[in-house]
């Protein structure tokens, strides 16, 4: 993962998505108007978050199998970065909701679900702080991480589908892609999603390498 081509690719993709997203043509729709451009920034945050949480679960499973402390560090840094993307997703969503739905926090199952999922991952970080011993901390945190992941999926992707929701694609609403996006928007949107995922993974690897250096510094040689 040390190669730099994918980092440059991510940067170029995000940069072109920002330019294309702010300048490109969008359909004129009631209520949404120009705010439809937020779909290029709000939705990719959640994709990046989900990718990072998925990476975290994979490394937690790997830790339980191998017992290598590096895998635990990878898992925790993926969660740290994922929580950041979740915060940005909530923030961009609140800006958008304020304009289209009239208030920053309407009582919507998807909003509440993502808030609770954030609580779950913050609980994971609290659990890590509660434990002193490294091996034990890594193991118990990995167990909780794997335990929490399916619940997060249920919260974010299954429960909102069952109830009435303001979000597209939930509660019998059509998905955003079917209703509102036209073919000019799609390429920009997918570029943005892939770009932000790459940036997220880059931030995560940087944090991991920092953590490794910190560990090395703290060791008695």
């Amino acid at each position, binding site marked *: 993962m040390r190669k730099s081509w994918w980092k440059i690719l991510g940067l170029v993709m995000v940069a072109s998505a920002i330019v294309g997203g702010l300048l490109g043509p969008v359909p004129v729709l009631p209520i949404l108007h120009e705010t439809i451009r937020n779909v290029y920034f709000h939705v990719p945050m959640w994709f990046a978050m989900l990718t990072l949480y998925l990476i975290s679960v994979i490394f937690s499973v790997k830790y339980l199998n191998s017992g290598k402390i590096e895998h635990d560090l990878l898992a925790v840094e993926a969660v740290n970065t994922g929580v950041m993307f979740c915060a940005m997703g909530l923030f961009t969503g609140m800006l958008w909701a304020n304009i289209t739905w009239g208030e920053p926090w309407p009582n919507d199952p998807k909003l509440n679900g993502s808030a609770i999922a954030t609580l779950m991952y913050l609980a994971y970080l609290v659990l890590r702080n509660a434990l002193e011993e490294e091996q034990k901390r890594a193991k118990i945190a990995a167990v909780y991480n794997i335990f929490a992941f399916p619940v997060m999926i249920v919260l974010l992707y*299954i429960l909102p589908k069952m109830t009435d929701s303001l979000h597209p694609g939930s509660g019998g609403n059509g998905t955003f892609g079917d209703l509102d996006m036209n073919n000019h928007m799609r390429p920009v949107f997918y570029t943005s999603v892939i770009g932000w995922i790459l940036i997220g993974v880059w931030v995560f690897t940087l944090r991991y390498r920092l953590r490794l250096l910190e560990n090395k510094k703290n060791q008695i040689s």
Partner: protein
Amino acid sequence: MNTFQQIKTLVYKDIVLEWRSKYAINGILLYVVSTVFVCYQAFKSVDTLVWNALFWIILLFASINAISRSFTQESAYRQLYYYTLVSPAAIILSKIIYNSLVMLLLSTIAYAVYSLTFKQPVGDPLLYSITVLLGSMSFATVFTMVSGISAKAGNNSTLMAVLGFPVIIPLLIVLIKLAHNALVGLDRAISTGEIVVLLAINVITITISLLLFPYLWRD
């Protein structure tokens, strides 16, 4: 002994241990009854929505109190002894079954006392009873694993709440919705989706517990 017999023996052991002292179960029962009574004194009469929410909140806190001790009531040495005798899957399954039984008893009594004090016509009593049954099972499956994790992490009750609440909230949302459907007496066909989701979450939780518990107890 095969796993099934091990589970049977372990559940029997837990019941006998509890029956000898009757400390925990009486304490929790008293807790439930007094909470219900406090709520009754405070609210006197409530509408359907509050009645339902209050009942599930009482059950939630009762279950957290009842289940949080499941891995700490016996000493670490005795647990080590069990671990040399039986498989970890048998231990977690027996705890889940025992906690489900406790929760079943608890929620039945809570429901009886609650509906006795707060008079509230239930539109579909059978569906409401099924919801209570499913709810006590779900609380037991989720909190057993969480209490196992928090017991390994030094077992402070804050940690149990911090770890347990976010995991139980999706279940609670579905349970409250299902219970509300039963209260107002909607057609049962509407509620099947919720029941399926509850059962699915339970199955997933039990499977993950079975997979993860062997890693948790091996210190």
